[in-house]
């Protein structure tokens, strides 16, 4: 049998990289869409990439943009994929308040452009479509835990754009019979999570504090609670959703919740740092054993309209897809810390040998 072909938007992101690796392992020919940028933006997939001049290459990249219909139509026409995974998005909640128009154009209209391309090219019966929906749809949660039937209450331009995408996906399934489904994924992290997401920000900062490359870690709401899983687990489920007899929307979550403060404590523990917390609200601080203040609160990182708590119930996915997460929260944190630690050690080595080391912040 011929290899199946998958097209992944957002190939350069965390999920895109894990999914590409997973699908290549399943024998797929994998095509990814990436934006053209003046600097390379492929570090997460460089280990998968082969020079296209080599033989038996199964991984290809195409330049395209979710805000540009014609680029999307051309790529889908050329690739003729069996499965499309729409992972591309402006995925940062706080940024969506600063760039609401762009967020809507890429996160709401982007998936519509893909669905329209499927329809225009007459691929409704051939292509299966996965939309990366999000637990942010639940926002101000209407019940605990959140499942497929829980009402949505979006609290950010990001969530509102994703809400549109959720409905347009269902709409194209019903109106045109396209195999299209939403994966309502709760937070999922990994060592290649974007550096400006809170989990990665924490692990990166703590290892650098440990090695003396950095003094403090500034955070927003320490009490925010999230259901954190591992991206590697979650991409498997994205694939499973497209292998069913009938398309359906699924909540994907671990069913376990931790606060941002918990995350800091557990990550610190991996580095043999014991944090003592003092004060409350804006004045809350975390001190190490020697009494040095290492964690502080900066209101700059508060979300304009805070989503306090998210906790998912993935029973439906467990029952119908036979899926349960394999990687525990502690293992996730441990892996993130250990990868970031190696990176920081490299920086330390360079610094000690007289090379300049810059730590990018946001």
């Amino acid at each position, binding site marked *: 049998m011929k290899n199946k072909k998958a097209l992944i938007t957002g190939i350069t992101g965390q999920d895109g990289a894990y999914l590409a690796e997973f699908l290549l392992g399943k024998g797929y020919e994998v095509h990814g869409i990436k934006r053209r940028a003046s600097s390379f933006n492929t570090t997460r997939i460089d280990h998968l990439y082969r020079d296209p001049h080599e033989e038996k290459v199964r991984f290809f990249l195409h330049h395209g943009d979710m805000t540009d*219909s014609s680029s999307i139509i051309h790529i889908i026409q050329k690739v003729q994929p069996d499965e499309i995974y729409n992972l591309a998005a402006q995925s940062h909640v706080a940024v969506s*308040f600063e760039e*609401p*128009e762009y967020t*809507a*154009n890429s996160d*709401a*209209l982007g998936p*519509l*452009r893909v669905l*329209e391309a499927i329809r225009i090219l007459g691929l409704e019966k051939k292509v299966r479509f996965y939309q990366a929906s999000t637990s942010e749809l639940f926002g101000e949660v209407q019940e605990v835990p959140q499942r497929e039937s829980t*009402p949505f209450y*979006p*609290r*950010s*331009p990001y969530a*509102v*754009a994703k*809400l*549109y995408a959720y*409905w*347009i996906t*269902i*709409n194209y399934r*019903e*109106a045109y019979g396209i195999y299209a489904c939403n994966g309502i994924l709760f937070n999922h992290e990994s060592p290649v999570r974007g550096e400006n997401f809170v989990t990665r920000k924490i692990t990166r900062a703590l290892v650098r504090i440990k090695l003396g490359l950095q003094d403090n870690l500034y955070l927003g709401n320490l009490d925010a609670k999230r259901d954190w899983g591992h991206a590697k687990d979650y991409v498997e489920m994205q694939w499973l959703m497209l292998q069913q007899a009938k398309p359906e929307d699924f909540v994907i979550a671990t069913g376990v919740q931790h606060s941002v403060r918990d995350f800091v404590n557990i990550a610190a523990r991996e580095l043999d740092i014991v944090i003592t917390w003092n004060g409350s609200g804006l004045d809350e601080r975390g001190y190490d054993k020697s009494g040095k203040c290492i964690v502080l609160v900066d209101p700059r990182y508060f979300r*304009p*309209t805070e989503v306090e708590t998210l906790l998912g119930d993935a029973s439906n996915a467990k029952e119908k897809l036979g899926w349960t997460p394999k990687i525990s929260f502690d293992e996730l944190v441990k892996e993130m810390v250990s990868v970031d630690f190696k990176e920081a050690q490299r920086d330390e080595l360079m610094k000690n040998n007289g090379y300049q080391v810059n730590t990018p912040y946001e």
Partner: protein
Amino acid sequence: MNEKNPCALITGISGQDGTYLAELLLRKNYKIIGITRNIETTKEKLPFELKNRIDLVSWDFTNQQKIIDILLDNHPDEIYNFAAYSSGVGMYDNPIDISKINGLSVTLILEAIRLIDPDIRFCQASSSEMYGYIEDSPQSELTRFKPRSPYGAAKLYAHAMIEIYRQQYGLFACSAILFNHESPRRGLEFVTRKITHGAAMIKLGQEKKLHLGNLEACRDWGYAGDYVYAMSLMVSHSEAGDYVVATEKIHSVRDFCKIAFNHLGLNYLDYIHVDKSICRPSEPYQLVGNSNKAERTLGWVPKINFKELVCMMVDSDMQTLSKKYLK
């Protein structure tokens, strides 16, 4: 004290709702600025009495800078947003344009208000199409939205963004969840006007049959003039909010036909031809609004009932078409 007359900016000025609201606000001595994509075609469409009393400015509904400039130039006190690809037939055509105009343009207006003058009051013409897959009846502000068309999804996007801007930035922004609202100015592509126009044409001997889709489809139909009045009440209220605007009564297309043809002394059964091909896909089955909140908070109730509405539309079509055909 010589207080300046209030200024209202209305998008979709040449449409049914835009013209009714403009007339209402002109009676209250507002200065009206109409926003439109094409000034020349809008001038042609505007009723004669409005033409010289409204200033028109153009905006393509996708350019952020231009709407900022319009607010800077005109300093409006209120903005009413009616500009949209309308519902009904065509809700599935041009989904990207529909979503830009019906959805994203609202974010551009809200951003402009936030930047230029956060005291500007905003009212959005939202739609009962946002309910889509209906789970319980009647629908209120608290009923879940499950849109089933690009039109409904885009309107829901705008509705949800209004709440974000209200909560986050304290803007005075309202979403008026309007159930179907009709009038003699309704476009001919809508079933109500199609019926009254068709009945009048038959009465005048210009047509023999009227082709319709599903006669049993039911709607909560009100009068557009009443609905824009509700929106003006929302904007002058002390607090911004979302309100369902509806009659709370449900009628079928068949009821509508019966009254319209009866009004002309005809029996609808002799003229209606049911055509399956013009039934729209994924039809929502029963929409009826609960406008308690508007009544309680704004003191709003519809003044024109269903029968009056149908007869008003038939009379208007008869008047216009008689002039044309009975010379």
